[in-house]
């Protein structure tokens, strides 16, 4: 083996360990940051003066952080499809919408045909019409419905390759929200309430069971108190948990047999099939898992807004999600999280606030938020020019884009065989 890699000997023992410890560090960082943020908003902020409070309310309201977490959940789901399996999906908003409407159907008074209401561990007030299920159950249901939808959408489309697949997913991303927009009269049945949407949603219970009281001695302590639209801090905790679940699933799958199959498909589809990887089934699995998370994101989004409206689910969402994945670093969950948090905050709070400050400072009247796509576009172009692999790329991807490959010239005189 005269022509072995020169640096192989020094790096050989460590690589998998290095990656594992790297992951652990990020995971700890994620948890620590989530806790610090929670402590800050719960305990520190009320004791600070009005100055800092105003600043935080303007620049970093917890509501916008919650919304950013919704984006994180969906982006992590999209990352499975795009980053892991290498299937370009331009219609991810479809799953987001389906998840949102599932929340609308099962956690509101919308189905008033059921006049006495159907309750299951719900925190909603009794004797209302409609279906009222427990929030956590709805999460599971929405995830499963979306996974099923992913398989149904994927089965015909995944036979297509690259660009064609992207185009068809784009079509589905347009069709599904249109279905919700026009679904107020399906043969006389009001399925989606059309453009009026479904609002308000039930208050949710923070634990997987309905409101309950525990008596300790004479004291009655209410646990699992219903959370209304303004319990932002409690919702923050719930959203972080859902996001953490998605991250956990992503990382676990990545290490296993399925993750390797996806990576192999991303690298070389033909070779993968020749090595016994069933292409269709593996791709469908990627779609289903990604869609499951999209569904979770949809429910969480509906709860965050306390409503579902069809016009929220537009094409731009698919593109922004994709931008988050690309910006953060395709394939690396942590990079995608950073990308999602960053872009979501920038879009919902950062840019408008910056615009206000700028206008006040210079007495101008520029509508900054209306330039957001211009700025997104510029950021992406700059990224493609200077850092194509994203902010925090996967180690593997960094290799392709930064390091030289063993040259073709070397192949000619080859190593020994």
């Amino acid at each position, binding site marked *: 083996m005269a022509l072995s*890699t020169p640096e192989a000997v020094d790096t050989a023992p460590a690589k998998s360990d290095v990656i594992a410890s790297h992951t652990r560090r990020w995971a700890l960082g994620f948890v620590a940051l989530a806790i610090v943020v929670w402590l800050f908003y719960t305990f520190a902020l009320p004791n600070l003066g009005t100055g800092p409070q105003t600043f935080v309310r303007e620049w970093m309201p917890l509501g916008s952080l919650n919304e950013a977490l919704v984006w994180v959940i969906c982006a992590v789901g999209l990352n499975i499809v795009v980053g892991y399996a290498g299937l370009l999906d331009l219609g991810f908003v479809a799953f987001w919408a389906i998840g949102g409407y599932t929340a609308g159907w099962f956690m509101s008074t919308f189905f008033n045909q059921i006049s006495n209401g159907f309750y299951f561990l719900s925190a909603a007030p009794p004797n209302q019409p409609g279906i009222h299920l427990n929030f956590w159950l709805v999460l599971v249901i929405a995830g499963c419905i979306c996974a099923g939808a992913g398989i149904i959408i994927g089965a015909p489309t995944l036979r297509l390759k690259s660009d064609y697949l992207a185009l068809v997913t784009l079509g589905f991303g347009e069709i599904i929200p249109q279905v919700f927009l026009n679904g107020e009269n399906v043969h006389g049945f009001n399925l989606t309430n059309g453009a009026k949407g479904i609002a308000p949603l039930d208050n949710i219970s923070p634990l997987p069971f309905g409101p309950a009281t525990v008596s300790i001695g004479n004291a009655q302590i209410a646990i699992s108190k219903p959370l209304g639209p303004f319990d932002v801090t409690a919702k923050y905790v719930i959203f972080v948990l859902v996001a953490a679940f998605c991250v956990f699933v992503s990382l676990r799958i990545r290490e296993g047999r399925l993750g390797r199959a996806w990576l192999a498909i991303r690298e070389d589809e033909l070779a993968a099939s020749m090595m016994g990887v069933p292409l269709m089934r593996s791709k469908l699995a990627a779609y289903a898992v990604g869609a499951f998370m999209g569904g979770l994101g949809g429910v969480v989004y509906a709860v965050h807004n306390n409503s579902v409206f069809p016009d929220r689910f537009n094409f731009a969402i698919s593109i922004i999600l994709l931008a988050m994945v690309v910006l953060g670093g395709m394939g690396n969950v942590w990079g995608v999280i950073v990308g999602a948090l960053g872009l979501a905050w920038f879009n919902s709070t950062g840019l408008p606030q910056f615009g206000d400050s700028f206008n006040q400072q210079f007495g101008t009247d520029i509508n900054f938020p209306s330039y957001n796509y211009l700025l997104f576009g510029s950021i992406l172009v700059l990224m493609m020019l200077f850092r194509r692999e994203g902010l925090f790329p996967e180690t593997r991807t960094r290799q392709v884009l930064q390091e030289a490959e063993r040259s073709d010239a070397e192949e000619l*005189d080859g190593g020994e065989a």
Partner: protein
Amino acid sequence: MTATVDTASSLVADDITVRFGGLVAVKNVSFTIPQRSIVSLIGPNGAGKTTFFNVLTGLYRPSSGSVVLGEKDITGLSPHTIAALGLGRTFQNIRLFGLMTAAENVMVAMHSHTTSNIFQIVGKTRHQRREEKEGREFAQELLDFVGVGKHADEYARNLSYGDQRRLEVARALALRPKVLLLDEPTAGMNPQESAVFVDFVRRVRDERGLSILLIEHDMSVVMRVSERITVLDQGEKIAEGGPDDIRNNPRVVEAYLGRTGTEGSAR
């Protein structure tokens, strides 16, 4: 060879015909790989070797004829099913998963022999952990066997050309194949390397107990390693036999020398 009196065959292709539109690429070719043998498929460019190969691996469905692997009829099955049933292959131009480590490359090919489902993977159940551990150990064993064991954690694209060729063999072996198809494995090798390779092929056959089908242009390699040689020309089988028969067969000489007037063994 000693053990080849064995009459059982690991692969039988019977009367294969492949048509592309009006063009007949392979015409009524029958072909047998005896158990634990090394056989070669040769022929001038355009003879239909690759088409035939693709029929065996399931990329093309033959217009007529059947392929039997072991006792199972694999005609028209999808490539991944055929691979799982025990047909491993390497590629003429190396097709490794460049951004996966050598060990991961090998473990991908164990996909069909592992059963953990998505819930077991996420839950890291005992079954899944055992499968992963066994997979890693088997991968290391195979990498050691082909001689790239110390590069197990290197990305495949960073390996040298020769090591990549060996890694491809290790990956194919992870399928626990009955038959291993090698598509022009000595392309890009000099004579000494080819000689080493001949020994390697024999060692794979002996220690892994499988049959090997070789597509090869380098006649010196073919003549040294093969127990039986099948010659295709213009989609038809024109000769079959041991190396000496083939060397002296006038139709083979004509196919290689007669028409173009140049030595056909250039790659």
